[in-house]
């Protein structure tokens, strides 16, 4: 069954396949692991299709940075509900390394995290099927924010930054 996910606030059928998934041989577009990329970048590039890569919590963005241009998608992994490194990884990818492709949250992703994830720069979310339908409401959990971040669509204003006259 094809996977559905939330991308740019729409429920869409995922056209990407993870390398470990059944039927991924020759699939395009393909999401590879960090190790696969490290082992055979040339082979993967020679395929010619779009490539994505999985970033685990312990991976450092600096390790990936030189190769960023090859990827149309980065899937940041959240192994459990307490994992929080992905939020920093997302901000670094967007703000420091200017990554413009699809930034996907994968693993333990629930609607209650979406507001924060979106503010950090994620634009696609692999949610459990049961949560998919109502999850988009979570993007508007809060109508403002106290910090500048990497919002896609959410209007923020830096509250300590509000001038005295405002």
């Amino acid at each position, binding site marked *: 069954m094809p996977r559905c996910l939330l991308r740019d606030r729409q429920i869409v059928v995922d056209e990407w396949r993870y390398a470990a998934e059944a039927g991924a041989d020759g699939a395009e577009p393909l999401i590879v692991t960090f190790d696969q990329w490290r082992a055979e970048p040339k082979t993967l590039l020679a395929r010619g299709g779009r490539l994505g890569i999985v970033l685990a*919590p312990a991976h*450092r963005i600096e390790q990936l940075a030189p190769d960023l241009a090859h990827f149309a998608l980065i899937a940041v992994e959240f192994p459990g*509900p*307490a*994992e*929080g*490194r992905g*939020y*920093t*990884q997302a*901000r670094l990818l967007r*703000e*420091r390394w200017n990554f413009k492709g699809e930034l996907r949250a994968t693993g333990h992703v*629930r609607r*209650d*995290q979406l*507001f*924060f*994830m979106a*503010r*950090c720069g994620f634009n696609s979310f692999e949610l459990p099927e*049961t949560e998919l339908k109502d999850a988009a409401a979570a993007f508007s*959990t*809060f*109508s*403002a*924010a*106290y*910090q*500048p*971040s990497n919002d896609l669509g959410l209007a923020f*204003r*830096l*509250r*300590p*930054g*509000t*001038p*005295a*006259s405002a």
Partner: protein
Amino acid sequence: MYRYDLTDKTLVQERVAQFRDQTQRFLAGLLSEDEFRHLRLRNGLYIQRHAPMLRVAIPYGLLSSAQLRTLARIARRYDRGYGHFTTRQNIQYNWPKLEQVPDILAELAEVEMHAIQTSGNCIRNVTSDHLAGVTPHELEDPRPWCEIIRQWSSFHPEFTYLPRKFKIAVTGAPQDRAASLVHDVGVHIVRGPGGDLGFEILAGGGLGRTPVIGQVVREFLPRQHLLSYLEAILRVYNLEGRRDNLTKARIKILVRSLGLEEFKKRVEAEWELLRETGPRVDDAQIARMRAFFDPPAYRALPDGEPDAGKETAFRAWYRYNTAAHKVSGYRAVFVSLKKPDMPPGDATDAQMELIAHLADRYSFGEVRVTHTQNLLLADVEQGKCYELWQALEGAGLATPNIGTLTDIICCPGLDFCSLANAGSIDVAKLINERFDDYDYIYDLGELDVKMSGCMNACGHHHVGNIGILGVDKGGEEWYQITIGGAAGADASLGSVIGPSVAKTQVPETIARLLDVYVEQRQPEERFLDTVRRLGVKPFKERVYATLLAA
């Protein structure tokens, strides 16, 4: 004090709606226990021994009288008629019903209060000096900076799933009344080399299983960079702090394992990249925030002690329960929540309402919570202190013991907390029963006794001049005693005196420690200084010389 604008109000109301939805989904079986745990903890809700425990944020300990009245009403309506003030200047309710928590939050929101980030692995409620803005010798009132940090840290998208909890304390005076050296980050307002005010930043302090005194990571940070520097520290911590072991996940462990120099290097490197792009606080913003904390309309009054002719009880109270004020004719007045037969830090709904009334009448409608679990009316005319004392005395709120042996910091312990190994409240009671002679207590002078019912150290036992830690020994409650800890600017960790003692032996143990002090002290020497001078040995020898009477 800070007043919400429309955005603040909206955000807090949206939080209530979010939590109501999360609670309903949990009760409907759509969220698992574990999933809900991560969500409710970020809203101050623990599942405790008897019922859920709800911790409500009192940002840097500052309350309006209207807020205190709401806290009283919540205690009456949703709890059993009392609340417990904590070492982090918050209040805890021990008996709310889970399904009513969203309603409690809605009532709090009406008076600009919430339970946001009062627990969970996120940036917690920022704490400060309870004498902020009124104490002489202060370089600058830290509260505008606390509010800036409160706003910046609320719902911070990047730092809401940290390896572990993260506590920040801010002080502006040379005396440290906020225990900032045992916080994950301590922010001290200091004067820089050019004469400008800025911050000294400490990191890596903390209590719990592995107590550590914070270390300076930056001697001087220009003020406009406070938030970007905090982001740099948090970013390094978020990426590199341990997540595989809960007991090794605090920033103190990261600082220790990297070493201070390497930690500093990484923070500075991150900050170099953040200082221009990260949040910046400019002068207009500082001025706007400061305006919220402008001094109240003090009257021009001569400085003078209230009538010396008043009764002895009042004079003792005035001496111990009031503190110097920077404005002539005023005192800061402690409301003692350490009545011998009451659990330390507890206040009833009626007491809270009375204190709110007294705040309106005598102290510009504001009340503060101290980290030592008392309340404070910060701006009382000296000439009104006698009236105020009478009103407090009548409500059991004038126990003249601030800063003395019986002003005990104490966690809720085994009676309420599901983490505790042993009772705390009943030990405090035993100590109070044993030491009820005020001449003796006053003769001992300044003395901090701090007690925790378990290793988590909510009662700050490591930094008590006398620390008491509850331990479980084969299902029995025993107590490990430390001496020589301190929480102020000269913070130190206490040393264990020897084998733990039974509950009924705690008062006798303390008596023996105090005997050594009384015999060996030099003129004007505090208990802490005698311990520092003599070391643990003579105290240990005395305590264990003969069998401890129960």
